[in-house]
């Protein structure tokens, strides 16, 4: 099989499947914590483990973190953080982990908790769960992520947008959630390839086998995915006129309200990203007293 230079392969933990790859970046998804150490050892034998992502219905504070997980890059998709009391009790352990925590944005408390975790050094983020969104709250979180002068861990997806933004390219922040087939491909246990996690769940595969990945550039589904944005300009959707198109690309088309709240948020985020890039270009200020 040709070496895949760009893609991270996303799959469940299946030793037989993993044994077929060599030298690849592999991301394992799971709904339990049972085989974390085994996963780490097996994947890293001949490949590189990007992370293990666990999708679970447990709150963060109800998970029992084992000390030997600290070597494993771990991403958790959870419904909530849990109680503050428990969280602060767990904090020393959490800080030793190589951990990213994602909570659904539809719960206002989650937005507060993501900010709180980030302020305590835990890499955290929100994910969009297709339920009504309190855009003002999200805006506060974005502002914190992009402008707060106090030290804090990255907050996704705003960190991704700030660090990857280029003024002459569109930016798909779905990559944060592994849903960008230009970076991530989802492989089922039979070795079939889907372009996104959702398509994998729906059983819609672009390639019948991972052995065909080197033909992806010519693949119709892949080409269609990458040109799907053009529909907005053909249909002249509200998103095609949005100043923040370049960092959102119509992700909230179906939930645009009268105030265009999503636009208001992403315009702020775009300015934050530009501000971040401008700041990084500047030479560090010299303190003359030293």
């Amino acid at each position: 099989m040709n070496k895949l230079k760009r893609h991270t392969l996303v799959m469940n933990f299946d030793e037989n499947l993993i044994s077929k790859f060599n030298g690849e970046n592999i991301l394992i998804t799971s709904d339990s914590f049972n085989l974390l150490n085994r996963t780490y050892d097996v994947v890293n034998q001949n490949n590189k483990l990007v992370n293990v992502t666990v999708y679970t219905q447990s709150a963060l504070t109800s998970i029992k973190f084992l000390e030997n997980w600290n070597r494993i890059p771990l991403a958790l998709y959870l419904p909530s953080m849990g109680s503050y009391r428990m969280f602060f009790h767990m904090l020393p352990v959490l800080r030793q982990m190589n951990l990213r925590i994602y909570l659904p944005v539809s719960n206002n408390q989650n937005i507060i908790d993501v900010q709180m975790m980030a302020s305590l050094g835990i890499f955290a983020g929100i994910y969009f769960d297709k339920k009504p969104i309190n855009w003002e709250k999200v805006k506060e979180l974005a502002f914190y992520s992009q402008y707060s002068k106090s030290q804090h861990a990255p907050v996704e997806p705003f960190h991704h947008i700030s660090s990857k933004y280029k003024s002459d390219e569109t930016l798909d922040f779905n990559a944060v959630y592994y849903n960008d087939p230009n970076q991530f491909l989802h492989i089922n246990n039979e070795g079939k390839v889907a372009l996104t996690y959702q398509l994998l769940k729906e059983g819609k595969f672009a390639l019948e086998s991972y052995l065909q990945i080197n033909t992806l550039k010519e693949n119709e589904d892949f080409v269609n995915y990458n040109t799907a944005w053009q529909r907005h300009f053909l249909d002249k959707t509200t998103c095609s006129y949005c100043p923040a198109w370049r960092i959102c690309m119509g992700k909230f088309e179906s939930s645009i309200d009268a105030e265009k709240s999503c636009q208001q948020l992403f315009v702020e985020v775009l300015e934050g990203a530009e501000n971040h890039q401008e700041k990084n270009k500047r030479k560090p200020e010299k303190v003359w007293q030293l």
Partner: protein
Amino acid sequence: MAVIIFKATEKCNANCIYCGVVKKANQEVMDFELLTDIFKKINVYLLKFPKEKVSFTWHGGEVAMLGADYFVKAYEILQAECPDTQKRIEHLVQSNMTALTQELLDIWKKLGMNSIGTSFEPVDGIRGLGKNRDSVAYNKRFFQGVNLAEKNGFKWGFIYVVNKKSLENPMEIFHFLTNMNLKSSPMMNKMYDYGDDETGLAINQDEYADFLGALFPYWWKNRKRYASVKPFNMFYESIINGKIQMGCEYMGHCTNKWIYIGPTGDTAQCGRAGDFGIMKYPSIKEHTLEEILFHKDRKPIDERQIKLAETECKDCRFWELCHGGCVLDAYMSSGNYESKSPNCGWMQKFLIKYFEPVTGVKINLYHPNSKKRIQENKNQKAEIKK
């Protein structure tokens, strides 16, 4: 550099409402005998002036209507007739993107092209295919063309023609256009009205200035994001950075540089002159390229510069940004070469009412003696002839 606007065909699959070429309904296609003769004459010109280059823009109509075979043959003729000079011929192309094929892109690449100039219009019914001006089909095929071009490594940039409908919501138009292609921002040109506007879409000088003025504060605030949007970046480069980078209409040095060559070998001052059938020069069939580029009928264009600087444009502090504007526009509006272009209207209004207050910059680009520029042009010509 000599700029050849080359129209081997003026046929077009589209029927854009503001297009002067469509109105001509010229169905001619240049034959290969004439094409051979033209490349021979370019070769003679370049051999005589070893430091000179030629910019050769394949224009139309729609060039894709020529088909890939035409370009393959043109490439063969080029190889045969310009063996030692073809490296000094830069091929460019203007296309509406709706009829691109893999074969066309292959041969364009062979000719050294890597980008396509095009146009787009978000409002339906202005650009479109066929008699009914089908915008939906046009736009669909436009994006198919974009995808094919990008797959082949071509970049594309586009012109937007500001018309009456654009005035309804300038910011929406601006965002739509700047979102479409982040690699290349639009050039927003004024739709022209020479007194025969049957469409009701042409805009006047004030309307164009106000359209730009509605966008400019936003552009200025976000100029890093939208750096290459024209005409704003032309003013920015010229006024703020001091590098005069205006379009050909405003540089005052097109006299002996530009030539239009049409399907039957007819020539004119530039592409638009050819479209409107004015400022014509003799056919390339009977004359050399040098004879046409330095034809005596071009002399009034140079003289116009001196006269304007001493009369209408005397003391104008925007002189270096405009040089009296395009001679073609002046001729179309007043019937003579000696007056300034009516575009003075929008430019002055935009600069005074919008650019200066927003930027806080007081413009003073008065050229005390335009004879200096004429002398520079003469020196340039002498240099070419060396």
